[in-house]
């Protein structure tokens, strides 16, 4: 959860190296004024039979 900082930048790189795995990548930004936050997510489905789900809501407060 990001609620602080002037600028927040998060860059996760996630790789599936084995079958049958799963990822849930979620997050929320609670910002106001001129605060800035971004997330750049790279998910590498390098092998079959894996699952990934992402939810990233952004809210002004």
């Amino acid at each position, binding site marked *: *959860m*990001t609620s*602080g*900082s002037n600028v*927040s930048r998060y860059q*996760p790189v996630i790789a599936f190296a084995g079958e049958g*795995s799963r990822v849930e990548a979620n997050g929320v930004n609670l910002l106001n004024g001129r605060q800035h936050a971004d997330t750049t997510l790279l998910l590498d489905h390098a092998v079959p039979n894996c699952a990934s789900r992402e939810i990233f809501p952004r809210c002004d407060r």
Partner: protein
Amino acid sequence: MFTRSLLRIGRAASATVVESFIAADGAKAYQVPDFLVVSIGDGARLDHVRLIEDGREAFNISSAVVTLGANAHFNTFA
């Protein structure tokens, strides 16, 4: 401060990690360049939470590299 962390979750192991970035009292402008490397073994699980509560003049520039083995589970809330 340049923080670098390496986290290995062994085969069939499980762990919960909470990363907190919280400004010290009186902190003004500063930068957080954080980097996390994670390896999740076969059949292992990692629950991961990031809390960004830096000061209003701060810059938080963070990266993570996560690799999952077979039948592993990574649940992250950022």
